[in-house]
Each structure stands twice: as C-alpha cells, then as structure tokens.
C-alpha cells in the first residue's frame, strides 16, 4: 500500500463491466462508437432501482395511518410538491414528475457516492450537463409552445428606455444561455471537489502512518477526513436540493415569462 501512490482522481475512472459492441467505424481500433455497460451505468441502474423500490414499497400499503416507510415517501413527495408550488406556482405542478425524478436521482446518486468504493455518478460532467440540458430544453420548448413569441419578453425587461434596450437584450440572452452551464457546473464541481479532498486527506493518513514515528501526526488529517465526510453528506443533499430549486425557478420563467 505504501509503495502504491494514492491517486485522488482514480475513483472517477470509468471501467467497462461488459461490452455491448462497437457501432460504426471502419474496423480499425479506436474508430466508431464503443458502447459498454460501465460502472457508471451500473450505479445509475442501482440508483434508479433503489428509488423505485423505496417508492413502490413505501406507497403500496396505502394506509390511512402510514408506517415509517410510507411516511418517508409521503414526506419526499410533499417536500418537492411544496417546493414546486412555491417557486413555479400551481401551474408548475405539471412538471412535478420531472423535478421529483431529478431530485431523487441526484440525491440518491450523491449519497451512493458517500460509500467507500462506490462510484459517484454525478462526479462526471457529462451526466450533470445532460440533466441541465434536459431542464434547459424543457424550458425553451415549453416556453415557446405555451407563450409563442411572447416568450421573448423574457429577454426584454419592461420599463427600459429604447436607447438602453439594445444593450440589455444581449446581456439577458447571455444570462439565459449561461444557465445550463452554471446549473451543471455547480453540482459537478461540488461533488468532484468534495470527493477529491476526502481522498487527499485519506491519503495523507496512510502516508503519515507509513512514515514510522511521524504516524502520530496522522490523527490530524484523520480528524479532517471525519469532519469532511459529515460535510460531504450535507453537500450531497444540499446540491440535490439546489438543483431541484433552480429547475423550478427556470420552469417558472417558461410558465410566466416577463419579469
């Protein structure tokens, strides 16, 4: 263990579990699209499976006086339903399934990542970008479908004199286009940074213990690692919440454009 250097990035490596096949390409290695069932895909499946089991087992009793599991599922429903109603209005409830799915997926995937040797799905930018783009395109498509050209009012704040408007509109458009980027970067950055820091402190404990008499000092990074683990659990839940809140805020713009 002491000879092997501790790579903080190693935990994010994607491995094939079984190969599905190569599509396209001209037969030379590296060409075409390589599709495989990876450890990332495995943990996505596990995440969805756990959520489905939790919700199905929790709600199939349909008791008037709920037991603990049913209470937990009802609380998770109420929590997101209240959030959607507060930020996007009652009309926003038609997007409740999407917001709830996103919230539960991110929450469970983040919490899965807190187990040692588990892969963290949300630590890969492609995953968070896909989710952010899903929200972005939902907002754009639904906004145009519901409001037509009035959706452009989103870029033209009311009460602006005409000689300022040509400056404000490009700023508003850039601000709108930057949403999926900040939406996805925030979740990815928090999770990635947290896991790297945890690994670095954990690696320091091992390195110090291997250094003989200096092993006594290893208690310091160990304490940090313990504290950071608690913080990371908080971050995991908080980032799922923030992602869902911002989804609601953006959907609110699609439902009620114009500030």
């Amino acid at each position: 263990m002491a000879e092997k250097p501790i790579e903080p990035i190693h935990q994010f490596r994607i491995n094939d579990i079984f190969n599905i096949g190569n599509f396209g390409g001209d037969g030379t290695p590296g060409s075409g699209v390589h599709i495989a069932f990876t450890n990332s895909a495995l943990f996505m499946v596990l995440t969805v499976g756990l959520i489905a089991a939790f919700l199905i087992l929790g709600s199939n009793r349909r008791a008037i006086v709920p037991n603990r599991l049913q209470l937990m599922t009802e609380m998770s429903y109420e929590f997101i339903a209240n959030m959607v109603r507060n930020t996007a209005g009652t009309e926003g409830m038609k997007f409740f399934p999407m917001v709830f799915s996103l919230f539960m997926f991110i929450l469970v995937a983040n919490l899965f990542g807190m187990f040692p040797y588990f892969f963290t799905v949300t630590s890969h930018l492609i995953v968070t970008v896909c989710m952010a783009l899903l929200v972005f395109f939902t907002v754009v498509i639904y906004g145009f479908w519901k409001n037509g050209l009035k959706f452009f009012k989103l870029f033209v704040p009311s009460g602006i004199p005409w000689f300022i408007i040509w400056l404000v509109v490009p700023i508003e458009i850039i601000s709108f286009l930057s949403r999926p980027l900040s939406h996805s970067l925030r979740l990815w950055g928090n999770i990635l940074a947290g896991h790297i820091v945890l690994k670095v402190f954990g690696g320091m404990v091992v390195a110090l213990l291997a250094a003989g008499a200096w092993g006594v000092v290893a208690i310091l990074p160990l304490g940090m690692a313990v504290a950071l683990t608690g913080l990371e659990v908080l971050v995991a839940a908080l980032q799922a919440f923030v992602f869902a809140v911002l989804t609601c805020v953006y959907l609110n713009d699609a439902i009620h454009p114009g500030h």
Partner: protein
Amino acid sequence: MSEPRDDNRSETGSGAPKVTSDLGARIARARGQRAAEAVTEQTRQGDMSGMSRGFRLASEFVAAILVGAGLGYIIDMFLPTRPWATVVLLLLGFAAGVLNVVRATADMNAATAVPEDTPALRDDEDD
C-alpha cells in the same frame, strides 16, 4: 400532517360523525396552512451553508463569462469580424455575470426575508 386529529378521535362513536362534518373546514384550514408553511419554508431555505452560497455565486458569474466569450468566438469563426465579436461578447458576458450574481443574491435575500416588524433605517440622503 401536523393536524391535531387525535382530539377528535378520542371519543369514538359520538365523535365519528363530527369528524366528517367539519372535514370541509379542516381541509380549508389545511390549505391556509400551506400558504403559511410556504413562508417558513422560504426562510429555512435561506440558511444554506456558506460554501454552497459562494459556489452558487461563483458558478453563476463564471458561466456567463464563458458563454459570452464562447458565443463571440463562434461568431468570429464564421463572420469576418475577428476579434471584435469575442471582445464585445466577453464584455457583455461580464455584464451578464454580474446580472446573474445580483439576481442570485436577490433570491437568497428574498429567501431570508427581513421580518415585517423590523424598524426601518433612517434615510440619510437629503433628497
């Protein structure tokens, strides 16, 4: 969920019809509570940890600049305007970043609303 329904349940038999008769009133009361809960929920959302608050603002700011510069670069690739679209859109991106940060902080401040009975500060400006 926090309905005190045990008071009605305590006397069974005579209490049972009463439970259903005032059901409409209780539903109305619960609906009213939802609005009140919304306010407390909003204040609770306000105390996110400082790190996530900072990360939110930083990502809002950086994202707008990146998008602005990227858009400008793409325009420069296709139009003979090099390097002006990048320069102008980068600056507009800065402005959009500031706008994003101002909006995000306004949201955060709205979440931690000042209680209504807080005494207002005296207006020092002599206008």
